[in-house]
């Protein structure tokens, strides 16, 4: 177990290096000039551009820039962007909002996704099963920017059930965007749960459960479900890692100041420091989440325990 964790942690190093190298190169290769628009309507004077480029090290070759960046990163310094703010500060003020969004989406995945999947699975072939199958297909098929705008229009503007935007990032404001963000994952979780439950209901050990004299509630609710939920739990865990990376589209639609918006802004303003810093943090979070999910899986399924 301990050995396994150490091995996994060591495997994170090349992943981390690869991910940072790629994102650093992409931001380096991005066309455009970070000094554009810094001097009002006039182009910046050549002396300023030269100072700017040497101050931020932009005049150095790519690999040197990468080396300097990684050197700072090892001391925990994510850098300071062109506006004089540390990237850590930029992330710190936005992460609570992104975290709230992710939590709302995860709760929806667990309650709605698993709930609908179980209902559809035990009522296979009935109305509720068809309803779940069709509605999840619709959700999966509709792009999130359509779904988000539609939800904003219907529930925010027409019905006035929810606030139209979520600039302050309170729980109430984030509920609708969180549900929109989670809807795709909810649909996948519902389908995954249904499929696995249907399969497990036919399993030999469920027949054994009945042969042992169990009522259906226990045979299904304990024996079949325990096994059926394993893939769903893994999927939900992995989706939490992905959600913590911010949601560019949803955050844009509902005007949310989260990590997704930060990344979007850093790209459009050619703010490479912020972009690379944010992605580095997201990569680390995602890798840690994946490791936690794998460890959880071993805990839930004794056959996969890492002895």
């Amino acid at each position, binding site marked *: 177990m301990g050995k396994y964790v150490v091995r996994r942690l060591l495997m994170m190093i090349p992943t981390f290096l690869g991910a940072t190298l790629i994102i650093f190169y992409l931001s380096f290769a991005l066309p455009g000039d970070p000094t554009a628009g810094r001097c009002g309507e006039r182009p910046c004077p050549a002396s300023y551009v030269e100072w700017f480029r040497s101050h931020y090290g932009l005049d150095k070759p790519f690999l040197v820039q990468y080396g300097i960046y990684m050197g700072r990163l090892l001391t925990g310094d994510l850098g300071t962007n062109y506006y004089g703010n540390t990237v850590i500060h930029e992330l710190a003020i936005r992460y609570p909002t992104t975290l709230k969004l992710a939590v709302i989406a995860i709760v929806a995945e667990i309650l709605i996704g698993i709930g609908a999947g179980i209902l559809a699975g035990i009522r296979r072939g009935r109305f509720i099963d068809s309803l779940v199958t069709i509605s999840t297909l619709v959700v999966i098929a509709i792009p999130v920017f359509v779904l988000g705008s539609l939800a904003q229009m219907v529930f925010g503007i027409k019905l006035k059930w929810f606030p139209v935007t979520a600039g302050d990032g309170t729980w109430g404001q984030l509920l609708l965007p969180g549900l929109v963000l989670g809807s795709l994952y909810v649909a996948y979780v519902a389908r995954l749960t249904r499929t696995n439950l249907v399969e497990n209901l*036919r*399993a*030999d*050990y469920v*027949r*054994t*459960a*009945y*042969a*042992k*004299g*169990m*009522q259906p509630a*226990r045979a299904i609710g304990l*024996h079949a479900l*325990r*096994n059926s939920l394993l893939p769903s739990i893994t999927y939900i865990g992995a989706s939490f890692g992905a959600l913590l990376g911010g949601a560019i589209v949803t955050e844009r639609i509902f005007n949310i100041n989260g990590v997704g918006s930060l990344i979007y802004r850093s790209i459009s303003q050619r703010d490479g420091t912020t972009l690379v810093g944010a992605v580095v943090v997201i990569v680390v979070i995602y890798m840690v989440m994946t490791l936690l999910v794998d460890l959880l899986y071993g805990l*839930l*399924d*004794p*056959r996969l325990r890492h002895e």
Partner: protein
Amino acid sequence: MTTISENQPPFEHLLDVRDLHVEFRMRAGVAKAINGVSFHLDERETLAILGESGSGKSVTAQAIMGILDSPPGYITGGQVLFQGADMLKMKPKARAAMRGPKISMIFQDALSALNPVFPVGWQIAEMFRIHRDMNRTDAMAQAIRLMERVRIPGAKERYKAYPHQFSGGMRQRIMIAMAIALDPWILIADEPTTALDVTVQAQIMDLLKELQEEFGMGLILITHDLGVVANVADRIAVMYAGRLMETAPVGALYANPRHPYTIGLLESVPRLDSKLGETLPAIGGLPPNLLRMPAGCPFNPRCRFAIDKCREGVPPDLTDLADSVPRRAACWRVEDPAVTAEARIAVGGDQS
């Protein structure tokens, strides 16, 4: 526990299956899996149900247990009398309460029959928890006692082990411990040794036999293995295409098979006195498709004795045969001297 209190209604047999019919309603049509099967089982008796794959042995067992997958399986007729009471008329809840204390079952593949995510001891203890409302500690003590009884080495230490950590034979012992936990009247063993290698097979059969005597259980042994049957069973019921072809005490059946299907089965057993290089006889053809049953006797397309009567109308019923022991067969020609003579040749000459 083997004596029955006076106020219970009298009954002839411990288990009495009468004219059982099961069908599977599928998209391709209705498969008639069990077509009027009748047999009985007494206390301490071992009945072997012998048949090929798809002959309806396991479906019969599941119908008796009440764990038939439905849909697509439906019991469309008959009675299953346990101590005189028809289990098919009971409410599902009452039926479930009988599974374990009255009648229990073990399966062919213990690895898939045990739940992979719960410790084996917990799965045995579960019997006491659901049927006897026992607390965790007492149920655990009972489970360890049972694991010791079925001779699992280091039972106490292995209580918390998972099914995949055991060998095939040990897993089947766990299944057996679970099935006998509540001291049932009847144990149905559905191909209990098919998934095991030969030496382990013998150990498991010995264990079953031993436990049957200790607990006074009636044992229904479902198998396709003529060798397993010969050593253990008291009576044999030979099944084919959802019907019983022949029932007889084990000695009489082996010494003198009467139904052409049984004759064919015994002919196909390898013999020590056969000449080197001799081809093993086999029954030609395949069992009938249950969706398209032939007219008349279901065995007629493969039967070398078949006459016109066998190919039309309704199949013959099981009828009593004239013999020194009670035995029955379902064949129009069973008393025909031609068939009788073949039967003697089949088992290697008249040994009487």
